[in-house]
């Protein structure tokens, strides 16, 4: 059932709907980051806010645009870590509580 190949990001199934989207490259530089599929599952279950809402909050505060974003499991729940380019050209890293959307820290 499980196909493991070295350079595979994801596999889609034709017949079995239950068997696609296997976690393959879940190991980011900072450990337990969510894949896009896991993030979608978490959002669908209501565990985390949609990323678009997080982006909207950051944008309304800093302007600019996203550079990258990841969802992590932390001790007290999930957090989004968003790399952001502000209006003034500053690359910042914003940590957001994924459940409430509250900005926890900015650096």
């Amino acid at each position: 059932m499980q196909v493991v190949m070295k350079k595979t990001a994801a596999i889609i199934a034709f017949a079995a709907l239950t068997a696609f989207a296997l976690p393959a490259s879940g190991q980011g530089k900072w450990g337990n980051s969510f894949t896009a599929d896991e993030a979608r599952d978490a959002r669908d279950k209501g565990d985390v806010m949609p990323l678009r809402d997080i982006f909207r909050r950051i944008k309304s505060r800093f302007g600019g645009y996203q550079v990258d974003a990841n969802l992590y499991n932390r001790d007290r729940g999930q957090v989004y870590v968003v790399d952001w380019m502000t209006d003034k050209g500053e690359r910042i890293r914003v940590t957001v509580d994924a459940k409430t959307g509250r900005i926890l820290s900015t650096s």
Partner: protein
Amino acid sequence: MDAKTQFQNRFQRLSLARRLLIGALLWSVLLVVGGVVAISAVYRAEAVNILDDEHSGTIQTLVRAIRPLDDGTGRIEDIEDRHPLDSRFTVPLSGKYWMMVAVDDQGNPVGDITSRSVFDETITLPAALRREALANPGQLMSANGDGPADQPARFTIQATTYPERANPVLLVAISDRTLTMEGVDRLRTILLIAMMALAGGTLLAMAFGLHYALRPLGRIQSDITEIREGRQAALSGDYPAEMTPLSEELNKLLEHNRAVVSRARTHVGNLAHALKTPLAVLRNEANGETQLDQVVRRQSQTMHENVDHYLRRAQAAARAEALGVRTQVSEAAQGLVRVMNKLFVADGKTVSGEIADAIFVRTERQDLEEIIGNLLDNACKWCRSEVRLHAAPAEDGLVSIFIDDDGPGLSPDERAQAVKRGVRLDETAPGTGLGLSIVADIADMNGGSLVLDESPLGGLRAIVSLRRA
């Protein structure tokens, strides 16, 4: 029908400048709206073409990144190394997305692999586009739809098939259209401003030009007024080339008019001389006391009076038709007042006249003298001791000349009768009874009137109104 006629009438009375301006305005609006719509449509199509070209490249890359598994399950995997290279496909919700979508026998999606940029969003392919792509395998099909995070998006889909798999796989490239749409909006705004400025400027220049071009018409009108009021003999101004023929024709018409009047006057004079002598002969010859003599005397006298009356009328009419006449009232009146004072000084009657030098009337001097002479004569015959003459500007561009006496005056009925032609109110005082009626006639032919009223001196007041010049 009525409304239509009314509209037509109104249109026919519409000024030339307005016609031109309304036409230009309609055309400008059409051009601005049409131009803006057309140019932004072309720009939008071009921008969409660029997106579609980009999508075509992405899909070609996706073909290389797909690997069907040869294990009979029909499953497909993607090769990460061969993903499209643009880093925007990895930034969440960046606006650039790709998808590989497996479909079942009915063409419904059963599973997908998406670029990382889709992240936690779910993308639903536009159903119509999906069916279209499946119906045309190998063809790139594009349409607009709803992208992730509510972005308006451009979708391009190609249906591909593989020997390892029964059903096709849809390769999809998606781009956020927000920037394109903003570009179109910006272009439309700029275009609208630029074209409205252009149209507005053109209209303004046109309005100014028209105003300037039509000014000679106003000048020619005021010149014609000057001629009518006798301050000018002909159109003498320098007019633009287009109007020179008109002014020349008008001058010719004026010249012709003067010639006609002068000819008529000559004829009238000739006729007067031709008739007067035979009538005088008739009257002189019939000096006996037979009934025939009496009849001839009476009738020839009547004929003489009538000829006189109608000749004067004709002369006055001919003169009244003439354009450019201007007579100073005070100058004409002075001589008459002097004559009347001389004639009636023996009876202890005085005539006084007070008329400002600035009062001019549009009546030949001869006619004016006839009018004032007749009225003064009447007034002097009937007054006890005093006749007064004065003049004042009246309404509607008229001048009123007042002749007052301190005689017995007339009752309202008698006043009404007096201005009827040929009525003699007295049978004792000398005169033909035509005096007042010829005055009324001449005044009438000169665009004026004669009114009789009570005088503050106690007698009759005659008011002659004539056009001011």
